[in-house]
């Protein structure tokens, strides 16, 4: 039997050791976790051999939480405590949900219409973030059991067309589940990675991704391991669920036709019919007609037959709805149909024949379906996670993704001034100067919006903050520079600065649509229970690990590149290293983190110098190559 190696506490793992990282596809209908094992991306199964985990969470009377197939099986019996498709509600307020009359949950009305929506269950009020965290916890447990160790980090996929609020909610859910998010990755980009690497594809490809609740279309240029997104578009409220819903409405119409006294359906009957509708949809993928039979709670027998022709007819509008974003993406990428080398179908809903036909007809080529549309996103996420933690030896995978929606702010008259246009390659930063409107104006309210429309009222408001302390000047004399920065996860931060006296305001865009820091801390506390001592020990252990990691990496960097800085700068860094080593011996996590910050700060100029050196080295390397040719 092989002996497992355990490193000394506080020491970082040997460089060659495989680090455990996974990719998670947190889907509307199903969720998956995948990893790279001996160079192969693989989806991890549960103990029953299931790869797909239905994204359904049931809150039990005894306080237990059940996730997946068992929860799904009880959906019709216990609809108000069994939440499916929580992804549709991520980062959304109640007013965003169009068809709530047909969703059998107890949504809680809030006086504040911008407040995140909540669902009343027997376990209390639950946010979509908490519900999603339960799904993530289940996948985390599955991965750690299967891989036999703690995860270093995860890549979680999100629809490319998710806005800032939806991305932030996804990150919050991961944090609640105790996961370290290496990166939020756009689903179509993940699919392109899995497809592209598998097929050694080069050229321009379209990823058409119709999932359970979201639609994305991305156009990517693949060149030697570089995946460059040229344009993305979509609809974050369109998916397979909508096809189920159309069937459900059709069945309701048939019931109404057959009986004069028809009362509104109970929550259980709604859920039952929705489940039957989904089954009929799946059946129609390979059959010409589907029989829908069930008995409602009032004893009425429903028995109707739906033909595929009828199904295609009354879902035609949904299919057409996916083509407008597709055309927009093609325009933004400045491409014609001839430029497209292949179209990859992703998402379970692309199994529907009418969807395939529509894609084929538009692109005038047969779409590629050689990868399982349910698994390809998770596989791509696993490959990226593996590369991010440094397991991938060949240094040739690079994803250049874009921001899906334009970002801007409100100017006079409720108009939007666009600062960062959609489809800008990430990371991106842009600044714009604004001025005051009235004489002696000392404060300015800045509203950050996301969307393509001209009027603020038609875009999504992400945050509102105030810059105060502007020195009184004549109207138009002040210079206020507003800077937008979007990081590689697609998350925005905004800062504003008055140029003449340097008054500054900064927000990470979160307040109006995200959970506040306090809410997260509170949720984390309650999930850890009363084990306060555990928490302290855990914080200390984490602080020591990050201290060890930074000491290691800075020491290594100094050994190789200390010639890039002055002797004096080097001494400052070495002093901070010694200080951190000393502090790490003590039991004070806060002091360790402070010393880590100090060392980080001391190495900023060094890091920048190394970056410049490595960039110019990369370019001069190219010149040598061309000489050798």
């Amino acid at each position, binding site marked *: 039997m092989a002996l497992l190696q355990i490193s000394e506490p506080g020491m970082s793992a040997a460089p060659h050791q495989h680090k455990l990282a996974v990719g998670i596809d947190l889907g509307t209908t199903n969720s998956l976790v995948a990893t790279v094992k001996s160079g192969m991306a693989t989806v991890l199964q549960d103990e029953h051999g299931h790869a797909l985990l239905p994204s359904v969470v049931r809150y039990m009377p005894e306080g237990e939480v059940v996730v997946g197939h068992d929860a799904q099986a009880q959906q019709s019996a216990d609809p108000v405590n069994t939440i499916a498709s929580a992804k549709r509600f991520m980062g959304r307020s109640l007013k965003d949900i169009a068809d709530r009359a047909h969703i059998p949950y107890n949504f809680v009305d809030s006086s504040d219409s911008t407040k995140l929506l909540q669902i009343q269950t027997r376990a209390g009020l639950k946010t979509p973030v908490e519900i999603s965290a339960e799904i993530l916890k289940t996948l985390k447990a599955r991965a750690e059991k299967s891989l036999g160790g703690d995860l270093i980090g995860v890549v979680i996929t999100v629809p490319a067309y998710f806005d800032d609020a939806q991305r932030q909610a996804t990150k919050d859910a991961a944090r609640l589940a105790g996961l370290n998010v290496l990166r939020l990755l756009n689903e179509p980009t993940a699919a392109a990675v899995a497809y592209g690497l598998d097929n050694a594809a080069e050229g321009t490809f379209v990823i058409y991704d119709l999932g359970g609740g979201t639609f994305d279309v991305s156009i990517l240029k693949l060149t030697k391991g570089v995946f460059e997104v040229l344009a993305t578009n979509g609809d974050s409220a369109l998916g397979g669920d909508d096809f189920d819903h159309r069937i459900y409405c059709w069945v309701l119409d048939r019931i109404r036709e057959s009986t004069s006294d028809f009362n509104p359906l109970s929550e259980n009957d709604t859920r039952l019919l929705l489940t039957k509708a989904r089954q009929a949809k799946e059946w129609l993928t390979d059959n010409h007609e589907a029989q829908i039979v069930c008995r409602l709670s009032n004893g009425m027998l429903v028995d109707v037959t739906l033909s595929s022709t009828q199904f295609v007819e009354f879902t035609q509008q949904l299919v057409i709805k996916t083509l407008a974003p597709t055309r927009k993406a093609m325009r933004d990428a400045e491409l014609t149909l001839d430029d497209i080398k292949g179209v990859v179908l992703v998402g379970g809903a692309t199994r529907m024949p009418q969807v395939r036909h529509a894609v084929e007809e538009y692109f005038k080529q047969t779409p590629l379906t050689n990868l399982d549309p349910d698994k390809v996103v998770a596989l791509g996420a696993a490959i*990226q996670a593996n590369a991010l933690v440094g397991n991938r030896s060949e240094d040739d995978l690079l994803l250049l993704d874009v921001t899906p929606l334009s970002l801007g702010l409100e100017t006079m008259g409720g108009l939007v001034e666009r600062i960062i246009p959609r489809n800008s390659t990430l990371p991106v*930063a842009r600044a714009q100067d604004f001025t005051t409107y009235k004489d002696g104006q000392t404060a300015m309210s800045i509203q950050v919006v996301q969307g393509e429309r001209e009027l603020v009222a038609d875009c999504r408001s992400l945050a509102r903050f105030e810059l105060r302390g502007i020195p009184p000047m004549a109207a138009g004399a002040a210079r206020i520079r507003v800077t937008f920065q979007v990081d590689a996860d697609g998350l925005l931060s905004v800062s504003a600065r008055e140029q003449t006296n340097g008054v500054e305001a900064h927000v990470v865009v979160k307040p109006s649509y995200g959970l506040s820091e306090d809410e997260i801390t509170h949720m984390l506390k309650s999930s850890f229970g009363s084990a306060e001592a555990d928490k302290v020990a855990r914080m200390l252990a984490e602080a020591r690990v990050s201290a060890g990691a930074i000491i290691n990496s800075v020491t290594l960097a100094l050994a190789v590149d200390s010639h890039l800085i002055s002797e004096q700068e080097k001494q400052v860094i070495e002093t901070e290293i010694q200080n951190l080593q000393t502090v790490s011996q003590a039991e004070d996590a806060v002091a360790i983190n402070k010393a880590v910050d100090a060392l980080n700060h001391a190495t900023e100029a060094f890091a920048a110098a190394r970056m410049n050196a490595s960039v110019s080295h990369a370019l001069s390397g190219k010149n040598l190559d061309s000489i050798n040719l």
Partner: protein
Amino acid sequence: MSLNYFELFGLEPIFNIELAALESNFRKIQSESHPDRFVTAPAAEKLSAMQQATLANEAYLSLKNPANRAKYLLELQGITAISETNTAMPTDFLMQQMEWREATEDAISAKDISALDSLLAEIQVEAKTLQESLTSLLDVQKDYAAATDATRKLIFIDKVSEDINRAIEQIDI
């Protein structure tokens, strides 16, 4: 150390650059500096990666688009192509622009996407001509005054094209 965008990509500061070289050097720089390469690195390295990658994206965008590239080359000469005090345009160009704007309005009211598309194509022909003359004005003759006029026309043309594309988007639903 502050390199200009051409130096950053190891290119000659000319208008008629080799786009393939720009593209490939951009990818090389991103391969070194993209934040994905520094996910597990200390905060200082993450920060410098973020800054370098952001700069590379900005620089790439400035050099890839012909109007931006011309504008940037003029900036290197200390010339601001578009400023609040310098808005004069030749009358014939203004007339041309008004014609395009009118045609755009007509096509929008008729919801005629193909008319808008052919308008875009027509405008692109004009843009190509301007780009050719910019190659000679900036790279050969170094006539920066004439180049400034041509650059401003190109910027206006980009703006008209952008507006037409937005209009198409509003119609095409």
